[in-house]
């Protein structure tokens, strides 16, 4: 293979963006139901460590993926319980889960720190499509989870706009009192979507360790991409297809670093480049925390507000 550096970089961008795709689509679902889940980073990290342990124990990356997914979902159950049932402040609950998830993952990952993961995920070249010049190399010579992430995006987009429950989901995030009055269970809708969001975050974390990084390296394994996923949701205006696009842009920013170094470009310090996605993220999160800005960006109107029927 003698592809140009930029083609390889773009291919790397797709792969680097894939954990973001999973996590961001999950977060979109949770936020559409009206629950802000800031715990994504914790869920991804826990998903990653669980995936490593399960894959190493079973020798199957698929088992690893499943286990990591479930781990993310498990942590999301806690968030759903705190924010829906206990009506806790969602920001506080989410942040607490980041700390808890990170702590637990680091503890579990201590013994395997630095170990290489044997059964990683193998690439799946899609015949014919992969032979298309440039595009084929970038999009169709990837691992199966990249393709799976497209399916997740397509399903989420279809579900949200075209199905009865998708309509209920959106109503629940826009106006829970209306959903309630129309006979929908706000609590159930929120639980389900927060948990699905957590499952997807866990899957993103699992992908990160199974396909992206060579070994477990504590909190550095995900290196804050959970936060990037949160920012991405806003960039994408809560739309799955845009989230896919955005994920690849962020992925490109993450991958460009290596590419530029490889190409010997040192006009821009590498540290600055690796900072870039995080700077963007901070900016978006600051904007996101102002409720007026949230509204203008198209956030669900009741995002972050616990619903209680008999309360004014």
């Amino acid at each position: 293979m003698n592809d140009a550096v930029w083609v390889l970089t773009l291919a790397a961008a797709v792969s680097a963006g894939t954990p973001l795709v999973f996590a961001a689509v999950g977060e979109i679902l949770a936020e559409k139901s009206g629950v802000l889940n800031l715990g994504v980073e914790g869920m991804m990290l826990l998903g990653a460590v669980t995936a490593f342990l399960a894959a190493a124990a079973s020798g199957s990356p698929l088992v690893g993926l499943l286990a990591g997914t479930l781990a993310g979902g498990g942590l999301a159950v806690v968030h759903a319980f705190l924010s829906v049932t206990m009506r806790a402040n969602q920001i506080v609950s989410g942040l607490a889960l980041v700390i808890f998830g990170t702590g637990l993952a680091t503890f579990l990952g201590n013994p395997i720190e630095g170990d290489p993961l044997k059964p990683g995920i193998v690439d799946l070249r899609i015949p014919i499509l992969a032979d298309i010049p440039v595009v084929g190399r970038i999009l169709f010579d990837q691992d199966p989870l990249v393709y799976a992430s497209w399916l997740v995006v397509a399903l989420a987009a279809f579900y949200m706009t075209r199905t009865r429950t998708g309509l209920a989901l959106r109503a629940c995030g826009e106006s829970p009192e209306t959903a309630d009055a129309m006979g929908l269970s706000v609590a159930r809708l929120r639980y389900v979507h927060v948990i699905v969001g957590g499952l997807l975050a866990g899957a993103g974390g699992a992908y990160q360790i199974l396909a992206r990084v060579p070994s477990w390296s504590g909190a550095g394994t995900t290196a804050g991409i959970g936060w990037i996923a949160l920012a991405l949701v806003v960039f994408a205006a809560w739309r799955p297809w845009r989230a896919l696009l955005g994920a690849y842009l962020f992925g490109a920013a993450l991958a460009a670093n290596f590419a530029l170094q490889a190409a010997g470009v040192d006009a821009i310090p590498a540290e600055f480049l690796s900072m870039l996605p995080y700077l963007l993220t901070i900016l978006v999160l600051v904007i996101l925390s102002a409720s007026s800005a949230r509204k203008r960006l198209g956030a669900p109107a009741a995002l972050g507000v616990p619903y209680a029927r008999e309360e004014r």
Partner: protein
Amino acid sequence: MPDSPPAVAPAIEARGVSKAFPGVVANAGVDLRVKKGEVHAILGENGAGKSTLASILAGLYRPDEGEVRVNGEPAHFGSPRDALARGVGMVYQHFRLVERFTVAENVVLGDPHQPLLLSTRRAEKTVAELGEKYGLPVNPRARVEDLSVGEEQRVEIVKMLYRGADVLILDEPTAVLTPQEAENLFETVNAMAAEGKSVIFISHKLSEVLAVSQHVTVMRDGHVVARAETASSDRRSLARAMVGRDVDLSVQRAEEAPGEPLLVLEGLNVAGEGDTVPLRDVSLEVRAGEVVGVAGVSGNGQRSLAEVAAGMRTPTSGRVVVRGVDTTGKGPTAARRAGLAYVPEDRLGTGLAPSLSISENLLLTHPRPFFLKRKQMEATAREAIKQFEIRAPGPDAATRGLSGGNAQKALLARELSDGPEVIVVASPTRGLDVGATQAVREILDRRRRAGCAILLISEDLDEVRSLSDRILVLYEGRIVHETSGEEANVEDLGLAMAGSSEH
């Protein structure tokens, strides 16, 4: 009620229903029976517990005691879904619509018969049919955020009919309607009753109750205090039952000639911003001891007018003079210092801080002294609660928990307490029951006698006519009509409000 068991069970019935919220008993042993095919009014002052009762019937609230029966069978509603399944639907006082959805999407929301793959086509058809049948024209493809309040209400009703409601609860449906829209609503209500549906019509307006219902249940302080056939009851007795004393809502006008002008608006032009209507060349003056009423259909510049007068908005040209001081665009504090008080219509949005207590809210406009004197604040608040008959658990209750009418009273209490000489009020009795309306009007009348200049801006013609010495009509940001309070006649005013070119 110890009468013999009825041959046909009531369509919906409440038996000994009680419900308490922290600090208030909203419903205390309430009995209600509504027959099939009847329009049943629930009449009561603000905070009487009408919405609470309705929410219990609709499955939103669970009663602490007592039970609800539908067609004679006990119904233990755990949520509105259960109530809808039994054919009980409610149109809430504060609408429950998803603004970003289309009408059809709002209608099919939560419908268990909707196929998993969303299809609004059938809903669009049904919405059109229902609209035809009951006189509720709505465009199923319109987005709710683009609709007027009247249209939103039609969507709410259609929504419940689509879900097959046989009992429809309308919580203060006319509060947001123009007189014409209210008239149409009455026709719809009658059409539904003729179809065999039962309608529970909640209101505190006697005339509406008399016009639309066959039966009326009167509530006060969480209790049912009277029930009657509407045909055999009269205004006075219903009003007395509702308020607990005699009320007098006759016209009040100044007896003495007005004094010097205290509020002068000169050639005001205001640019429209967002959804507010611009003002064009508006001049008026309000003299001491005079009430000047500004009538007009909502959205014709009332808000701009009130806000310019109160110093909250800067005109592009023209002057605002309060007691000889030019306060044009100098901000609300300057206007206040010149002796002007402003009672906005949006009482929770701009008038009160919802999570602060009543006593704290009363203090908001008195920035001095720096340290709060708890005792004194509490005494002031107690006094205001008594004087303005604010129904609240106490001076420490957050204003968020007050019913709409009581919040308005708290706001008036604050604005009128330190004797301003110029008062700008917007719809001071909107949403208030007769008792409170009378109290508020008396307060304004008393201020007039004391020599205040009052600018009364309201969409309610009755309100304008009952208090004003002079009446102006605002249409598309201009004053198009002027008359004295005595000579005003409804027809001319109505025409001017509708923009008829003769004026």
